């Protein structure tokens, strides 16, 4: 079997096998899930670096061909491997999380594997209709995963399905528009992506702009950018943290950003105006969502808003249309999946033992959840872009992209958004892990299950590693996305020198881009050096500190002005951290409206839909004679139309 088929077929077969396991042998579902994920991961990484193609003639859907045409390139190759790795980590975590609780509900592992297969289809497809099919499969699996989890998940599942379904429809319409314009132009193999890349479509004519915008809305609905993000926070309320980490946290980001990068770099010659649209949506998303995150009281919902906000950086980076900005945007997608999965899984570990995700009811867990605390601490600093962690490395590239694109206001917004993210995570760390411990938490302590702790630790370690040594990933994986050849580059960040003049706009001739390859990334920053310096100074300071009086620190009661500390009453819970911000004159009405769903296209359209539904309801009187009258009237209209229509 062709190597390109394996990342699609192996998880699919394992998923179907898991579906066939009868409920009595539930434990086998987890085994199949884990083994399928391991196998999927192995076959996915085996195609990295491959430039192979594969084609089997399929059948025609009306005038459009649906062939199985696959191709790996410098982007899809590693994206498949990355998606499969996230699936593996989430599968392992699921086993640990559901241990001692009767195993995962329903066909959890099966849908995860099939979603992973769908994601591989999207990433490897060399044919637009095939891509649409994979895209659909992932949406469907998301719905099934959420609906199979908790009873309270159904509202979020329905909303996610409706919004993502509309996104999928937009994708399909965009593809059909592309096909029509290609047929007019007499293109030989319409809808084949390789052909599309060889001769990108212009964005000057009306239909093609509409097609671009349709594909763009599909991408941002999947990735979760404003205004099509609202399914993520709603879904977060009722679904399992591992599902959040797996789909909206990582796979959906990979797919959405993959599509966005493809349409704005490869398939279309994106105009400056459309790039401005991407950047503006990005900035609105990053600021709007992070403000909403700051005022949340539920840990899962708060993380969901951050999963939206971070998409803004990816859009901003890709929208700048400069080599360094696009690299930053794509690298940020990778980093985001890592730290956000770590945060969701960490939140899951806390929720598993305490039974709540309400920030006001948590607190003081730092001592009994040491591993979770350490991992979430690292991931929280990474998402806030604190050097030398991975979030900083990719944000730094996005900032440089803003400078290269001459967009000072967007740059300020991006840095400010990062400060707001930090503020929001200070609140999380404080409310969950610090402060006096609430009595109702009892002696809740971290599970010792490696299934839970191992994925957490792996992800946190990746946050540090990618932050300190981003050079290898940038040269090998992210560089090829914009056509930088890894062999042309001196590997590693240390050798990269550069000046802003070489941060070319995307679309520069290949030989010019290749000449700039050794210079592109991390030129004037040297993250490993900054990390080393930080560590060095801290060690020296620790040494200096230990010169004085030695011995273990003495433990004394908390001092609150000489009063006795009442752990229930004298708490300053994190949910009160930003009340001042909430009450600011301009922001207050916006927050109120946002919390009521006033900016949610789903809720707003429901509001508009209500009169229509009321009218239909009135027509549905249930009286037979009324229905007969309607039928008669309809027949009469048809009759008249047929009689005089021609």
């Amino acid at each position: 079997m062709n190597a390109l088929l394996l990342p699609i077929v192996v998880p699919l077969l394992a998923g179907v096998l898991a579906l066939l396991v009868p409920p009595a042998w539930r434990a086998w579902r987890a085994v199949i899930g884990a083994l399928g994920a391991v196998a999927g991961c192995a076959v996915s990484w085996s195609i990295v670096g491959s430039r192979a193609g594969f084609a089997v003639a399929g059948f025609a859907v009306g005038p459009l061909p649906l062939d199985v045409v696959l191709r790996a390139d410098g982007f899809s190759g590693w994206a498949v491997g990355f998606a499969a790795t996230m699936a593996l980590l989430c599968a392992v975590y699921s086993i640990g999380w559901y241990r001692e609780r009767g195993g995962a509900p329903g066909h959890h592992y099966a849908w995860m594997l099939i979603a992973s297969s769908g994601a591989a289809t999207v990433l490897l497809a060399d044919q637009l209709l095939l891509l649409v099919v994979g895209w659909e499969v992932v949406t469907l699996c998301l719905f099934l995963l959420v609906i199979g989890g908790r009873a309270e998940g159904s509202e979020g599942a329905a909303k996610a399905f409706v919004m993502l379904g509309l996104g999928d429809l937009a994708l399909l319409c965009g593809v059909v528009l592309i096909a029509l314009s290609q047929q007019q132009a007499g293109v030989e193999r319409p809808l084949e992506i390789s052909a599309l890349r060889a001769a990108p479509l212009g964005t000057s004519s009306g239909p093609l702009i509409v097609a671009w915008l349709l594909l763009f809305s599909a991408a941002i609905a999947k990735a979760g950018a404003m205004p099509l993000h609202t399914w993520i926070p709603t879904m977060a309320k009722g679904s399992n943290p591992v599902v959040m980490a797996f789909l909206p946290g990582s796979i959906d980001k990979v797919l959405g950003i993959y599509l966005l990068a493809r349409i704005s770099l490869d398939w279309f010659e994106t105009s400056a105006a459309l790039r401005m649209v991407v950047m503006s949506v990005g900035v609105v998303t990053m600021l709007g969502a992070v403000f909403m995150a700051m005022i949340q009281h539920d840990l899962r919902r708060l993380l969901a808003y951050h999963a939206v906000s971070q998409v803004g950086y990816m859009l901003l980076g890709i929208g700048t249309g400069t080599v360094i900005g696009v690299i930053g945007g794509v690298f940020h997608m990778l980093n985001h999946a890592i730290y956000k999965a770590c945060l969701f899984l960490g939140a899951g570990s806390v929720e598993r033992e305490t039974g709540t995700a309400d920030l006001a009811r948590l607190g003081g867990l730092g001592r009994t959840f040491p591993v979770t605390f350490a991992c979430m601490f690292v991931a929280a600093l990474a998402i806030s872009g604190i050097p030398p962690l991975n979030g900083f490395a990719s944000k730094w590239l996005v900032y440089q992209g803003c400078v290269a694109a001459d967009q000072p206001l967007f740059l300020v917004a991006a840095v400010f958004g990062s400060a707001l993210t930090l503020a929001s995570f200070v609140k999380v760390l404080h409310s969950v892990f610090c402060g006096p411990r609430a009595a109702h938490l009892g002696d809740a302590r971290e599970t010792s299950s490696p299934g839970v702790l191992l994925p957490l630790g792996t992800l946190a370690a990746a946050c540090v590693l990618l932050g300190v040594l981003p050079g290898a990933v940038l040269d090998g994986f992210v560089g090829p996305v914009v056509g930088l050849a890894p062999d042309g580059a001196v590997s590693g960040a240390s050798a990269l020198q550069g000046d802003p003049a070489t941060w070319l706009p995307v679309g520069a001739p290949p030989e010019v881009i290749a000449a700039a390859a050794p210079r592109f990334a991390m030129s004037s920053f040297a993250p490993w050096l900054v990390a080393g310096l930080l560590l060095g100074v801290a060690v020296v300071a620790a040494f200096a500190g230990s010169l004085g009086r030695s011995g273990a620190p003495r433990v004394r009661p908390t001092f609150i002005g000489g009063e006795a500390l009442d752990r229930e009453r004298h708490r300053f819970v994190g949910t009160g951290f930003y009340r001042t911000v909430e009450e600011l004159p301009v922001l207050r009405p916006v927050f109120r409206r946002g919390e009521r769903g006033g900016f949610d296209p789903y809720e707003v359209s429901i509001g508009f839909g209500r009169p229509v539904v009321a009218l239909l309801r009135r027509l549905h009187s249930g009286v037979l004679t009324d229905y007969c009258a309607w039928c008669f009237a309809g027949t009469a209209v048809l009759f008249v139309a047929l009689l005089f229509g021609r």
Partner: protein
Amino acid sequence: MGAIAEWVFHLLVFPGVLFSVTLGLVLVWLERKVTALVQWRKGPPLAQPFWDVVKLFGKETILPADSVPRAFLAMPLVAFAGAGVAASLVWLPLLGLAERPVGDLIVVLYLLAMPSLALILGASASGNPLAAIGASRDVKLLLGYELPFVAALLVAAFQVRDVDGAQVSAGTLSLEGILAFQQQVGSVLARPSGLLAFLAAIICVQAKLGRVPFDVAEAETEIGEGALLEYGGVGLGLFKLAHALQLATLPALLVLVFWGGLTATVWGVLAFAGKVLAIVVVVVLVENTNPRVRIDQALRFFWGPVALVALVALLAARLGY
């Protein structure tokens, strides 16, 4: 090997930690002396801030009962490391000592925020409710000043264009680039956008240093040193040192970014010292003549007029003014 030894020297001795700490403690003395003069007192001797730190380092470490010990003990180190590396990264380009650039404006901005962040997280990890109030105020203050501060510093980055008549780039975030530009074309401060940005940045530095009127996070009379409440001994000493490092770094950064940097002549060095002292004295005088504001007032002030001025300056810089 030689390169590494050189780096260690630059980082730990000159112009990094040791030099900056010494300079910072001298500036702390200057601050206390000027304050004393304003209040018609004599003030401490020059060595006083040094002895204060030495004494703190000899005290035992006390752990509050409700704290998360590791985080509580590690945060002073993070604060000191962030401030120390930031100091080196600002001084190296100023003195022209680095062979290859390390860090740029963005890296320095983030490193300069690390002491505040470490203090916030350390206060939170102490488990003390009063410290938590201090931490909450400190985050909000950080949010407040960070917006205008970033916008103001970026004015310099976006003024850098049209060197020698040809558009080399759309601006640069490299500190070396900003310095070179000023040496060729004249200081950023000389243009209207630069002046506006400089004024906004000085106000932000006042808050970044946690000085009155923006000392809401410590507010001794309300919440008893707030965020620092549970720290003593080495931890407190390291926070004080990080603070001294910031006092040495921020004025130097302002001079680097807005006021022409440092030229290697006697007059150049004297002018540079004069500029740094002028900024510090302005900060101290404002500190001594103002009452403390509430946190909501501080937020409104920074997100309102100060941010407006900084953003207008940034737009003006983008348009070439």
